[in-house]
């Protein structure tokens, strides 16, 4: 009885152990199978060479499926534009303020604002306070009356211009150039002026670059003189201007959409043999809206990822991507 009981107890204990194990063991591995989903091993597809450049292998078919296109690095002509705000001003060299020589009372006024006058046209007659005789105020140049500060019977002072006559056949476009752009603006550069009246841009050239800056706005002035035959340009209105920077030929350029950053480096994805793509660090030069000059890192003739380059970056980095 004693021995049999002992044996039985031993048997039961063993079985209890097995039972407990059977109950608990599965929980150990289970989660791995369930949670791991179909996750791929991280980053196995990215390899590094001795220079630390990342490479992945990706087939043309896959690239095409994601809308990735390749292009060949080549020389290009960069033409960029700069935009400025400007204001139309009367040509200050053709603006004359007509001031009475003697103070007196305006006896008659002949011209109003906006009237076109020829040289020596009568503007007004003023009775001098000193001589009590009327004298004529005449237009010193041909042009348009753009301001009048005198009315009939009013006391006209020699301190104050009575008329402003401006010749509006030419107009100044004063552009403010921010200092970071100054180095790119030169006398004679072509400028397209848009008066924003729906009638298109007017071509002009920079004829003056101010030697002094404006302290308040920290800008410098560039001026374009435009002819104004139909009176389309009205002083006082704001315009925008585009400066066409001198075209420049560069030896190697890629499309702007090819540039990506990877781990704080600027890179271009370069297609290599055997379906490989390398993330090649490059040094950028000048650029325009379509192309970027590559100063170092890429040779002409190499094939690079031109459009949808982000997909390649995503493919390279996807091992790190996480879902939560």
């Amino acid at each position: 009885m004693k021995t049999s009981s002992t044996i039985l107890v031993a048997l039961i204990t063993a079985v209890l152990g097995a039972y407990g194990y059977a109950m608990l063991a599965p929980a150990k591995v289970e989660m791995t199978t369930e949670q791991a989903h179909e996750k791929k091993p991280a980053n196995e597809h990215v390899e590094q060479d001795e220079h630390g450049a990342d490479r992945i292998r990706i087939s043309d078919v896959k690239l095409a499926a994601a809308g990735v296109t390749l292009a060949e690095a080549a020389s290009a002509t960069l033409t960029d534009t700069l935009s400025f705000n400007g204001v139309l001003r009367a040509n200050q060299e053709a603006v004359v303020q007509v001031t009475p020589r003697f103070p007196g009372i305006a006896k008659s006024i002949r011209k109003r604002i906006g009237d076109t006058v020829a040289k020596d046209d009568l503007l007004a007659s003023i009775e001098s306070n000193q001589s009590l005789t009327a004298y004529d105020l005449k237009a010193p140049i041909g042009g348009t009356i753009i301001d009048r500060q005198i009315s009939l019977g009013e006391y006209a002072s020699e301190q104050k211009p009575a008329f402003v006559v401006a010749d509006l056949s030419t107009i100044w476009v004063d552009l403010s150039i921010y200092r970071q752009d100054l180095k790119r603006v030169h006398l004679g550069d072509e400028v397209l002026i848009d008066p924003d009246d729906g009638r298109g841009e007017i071509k002009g050239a920079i004829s003056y670059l101010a030697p002094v800056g404006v302290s308040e706005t920290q800008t410098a002035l560039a001026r374009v003189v435009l002819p104004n035959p139909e009176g389309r340009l009205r002083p006082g209105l704001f315009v925008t201007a585009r400066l066409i920077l001198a075209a420049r030929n560069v030896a190697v350029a890629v499309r702007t959409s090819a540039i990506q950053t990877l781990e704080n480096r600027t890179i271009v994805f370069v297609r290599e043999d055997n379906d490989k793509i390398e993330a090649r660090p490059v040094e950028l030069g000048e650029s325009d809206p379509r192309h970027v000059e590559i100063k170092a890192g890429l040779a002409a003739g190499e094939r690079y990822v031109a459009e949808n380059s982000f997909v390649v970056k995503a493919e390279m980095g996807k091992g790190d991507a996480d879902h939560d």
Partner: protein
Amino acid sequence: MIERIIAFSIRQRWLVLLLAIGAVAYGTWDFQHLPIDAVPDITNVQVQINTRAPGYSPLETEQQITFPVETAMGGLPKLDYTRSLSRYGLSQVTVVFKDGTDIYFARQLVGERIQQVKDQLPAGVEVAMGPVSTGLGEIFMYTVEAKPDARTQSGKDFSPTDLRTVQDWIIKPQLRNVPGVIEINTIGGFERQFHVLPDPGKLMAYRLGFRDVMTALAANNANVGAGYIERNGEQYLVRSPGQVGSVSEIQDIVIGARGGNPVRVRDVAEVIEGRDLRTGAATLDGEETVLGTAMLLIGENSRTVARRVAARLEEIAKSLPDGVVTRTVYDRTHLVEATIRTVQNNLLEGAALVVAVLFLILGNIRAALVTACVIPLSMSLTVTGMVGTKVSANLMSLGAIDFGIIVDGAVIIVENCLRMLAEAQREKGGLLTTRERLRTILRGSSEVIKPSLFGTLIIAVVYLPVLTLTGVEGKMFTPMALTVLMALGAAVLFSITFVPAAIAIFVTGKVSETENLFMRGAKRIYVPLLRLAIDNRGVVACAAVAIVIASGVAASRMGGEFIPSLDEGDVALAAIRIPGTSLTQSLDLQKALEKRIRQIPEVKEFFTRIGTAEIATDPMSPAQTDGYIMLKPRAEWPDPVKPKSEVIEAIDKAADDIPGSNYEISQPIQLRVNELISGVRSDVGIKIFGDDLDILQGAAKQVEAAIRTIRGATDVKTEQVSGLPILTVKLDRHALSRYGLSASEVQGIVEIAVGGKSAGKLFEGDRRFDIVVRLPERLRGNLDAIRAIPIPLPPSEEAAPVRTAFSTSALTQMRYVPLSSVATVEATPGPNQISRENGKRRIVVTANVRERDLGSFVAEAQDAVAQKVKLPPGYWIGWGGQFEQLVSATKRLTVVVPVALLLVFLLLFMSMGSAADALLVFSGVPLALTGGIAALLLRGIPLSISAGVGFIALSGVAVLNGLVIIAFIERLRSEGKPLVEAVREGALTRLRPVLMTALVASLGFVPMALATGAGAEVQRPLATVVIGGIISSTVLTLLVLPALYVLFRRDGARETPTMGADLAHADSGER
């Protein structure tokens, strides 16, 4: 007491019958209220607090929103922990309460705290609690589409904005009123907005700022009520409407006057109908779409509500604009119904088999039917109990019910009554009078009621350990154990009331008592085998021990899984892209992916959510997508018998053709539930807490390196917290001071310029749309444009703009500077998201463990981390992950399982009165387990908790069988029979009841083991274990147990049998 109940039941048999019918009726009625779903809801009690902060980067979100909200939630009663996520424009704080907390109570607490903290939050952010729903809440999804030839009223194609407007203002308000729907979540399309795009140049010309535009918009867009006046006895209400109603009315708003001329919005700005800066999008089969999701209120019946939603959607179709249609893309009803069908078939077929077996062995159709009646009766009572205890009906809770086990008690009673009736008839030589019959039935029932109750009790006790499980396992299996216990309880109740009553009413005629062919055949085989076993008892005992040990070893080598995952029929394909992927890029990749996947012939539809929906129940960045691949019904597949795994493989392969994404394949419900439980989903999670993100990341790298080298570590990963490109506009304070600008002025302009700012709403009836002031696209679209954003300078003292035309001081009018002259704009990688737990920033390194046990791995990892990782002060490491649950479950079960077994043993001891006998009976358990393990091995099913529950049920049945035999042998020996003869006779006599219970219990599970319908995979292991185990247990109880008995009880001292004698006596009549 029990006898009195039986006597009463027999006396008032019609009343009892009526009550029983009442119970069925009540249960049927209650069934309407029973929440039915495919799987148990394992979501914890949590309240999400989503705060929208338009324009905020992760850092600002964390500092200004997440932190105050999170801090406010500290110290809530029943709080388990908080965790939070700060993303672009969104802060999500998840407050997790202890299991069992009432969700509405929890929400109220959270709501109160939100009220308190609201003042500390920046103006303009919206705090909202997530819907009262769970991981299973997304029951219905539909898309809003326009037919190809459909045109809007103005004759244009329907734009995504138009469709979104239809969803927001026609469909959603109506669907939200469907009972049981808590929320309609929308993603995709664009919200309609009115955009005021001021031209900075023009603003400057009029000497106006953005602020003036905003103020003017706000001041010219309101209705007021002005009370009433009385006039000649009538009352006139006074109101003054002033809201704008169209683009042209916005254009006509006056901002100011210059020289007597009004300056209108149209003079300085363009006003257009535009699109919002959205955070998410949706696609269907490679095209953009608008996706609506109906969310189920907690505790509602998903099937009913999904049906209601579908019906309402059909009604709504009539009110949609011509050419706009909704398409249902996901409907939980299908899955639930398929699952219910599986469960129903299993239960019905099981019940039919049970009835057949009963009839075969009892030989009396009426008695068999009476016994079978216990099945629907106890089921309806169980349903009532489930409704009462809020246990939902699903695969798990209904899956473990074996009608064979349930009717065991009733079988014993019916059988004994039949025997007594037959005996009485034979004695009397004719039919009995009603009175005699009733008395016989009472005697027959009372005689066996105790053993019958005892057997049920043992089965019930072995389910107790399951009730102690907590966490996910607890939520999965506690309902199952509860349901089984309720069913067993109901069965007991009916076997002492209904069964005697029904026998009294229905079993009236002649009761025959002959042994049928089946039993005779079984005996013919059994007798020689038994003799052989007893003669070679030593060998048999050794063989038994060997088999037990062998299967123990086999079990430890078997593959395992947690819970066999339910095949939902559909596939979820989550695509994950690198942080910083833009929504447009993500959309393009997703469209390509969907078009590729659609080429797979089995795929019906593929729709995807990208980024975050309107209600951020699942805050994803644009780089993350949840895709749902709906498969066609099998009949429409080119090869209808193709296994689903092959289709999934094809999907996986096809997805790989589209580069740029990582893919995770799972299933819709699984995906959602995982996201909600979240925390850490790997085996081991090492959480590093601290303040500085860079230090945290550095520490995480060290930890990762330390863990990687440990044997067994796989999938070691650091949480992706950085890598989001952030454009930082860094103000140069010197430059600002020179221009006389304040930082906030510049920031305000950057905010308006790039993100836009809301300046009121435009009403169209109920519909309301934001009016947003923002810079025109050409001035905000790219890096150069942002650098050139014009910053207006404060007016100079001697300003005289009228004179500028001819003044000599040129350029005084150019009073603005580009942003780049007061700030540097640079793109740098920044934090992608900031996770916090319990109020502290954290970063998690996760690892899975393969081919090694978790405990030792964690110990080694902790050692390695302690040695190799040096943390600055204020930083610490916490260990978590699934291993936590595993450890707690292991601890619990290592205590509870032996306790339960001890309890069973005590029960046996009570009944046998002898430890040795009790142990002998107990030895049936390991013997039964061997069969279960063998069956699993044969079918290639891995161990799982489902299988574990099967083993539990098995132990109960095995003990019962052993008890029946041993008790009878004891009784024979006490009558003075020699040992071997007693054993032989006892075993032979008990062959019939043992075979019967075994057949009933195992056949009841056969349909479940063989089923292939939806949900079958969850029940299969359980059923397989029980069937295999019962076969082995039966064989072993019939052969090994007698042998063991002879071996160990050669000349043992006799003890007085107590209840065992009763049982044996009761069963002796079977001969």
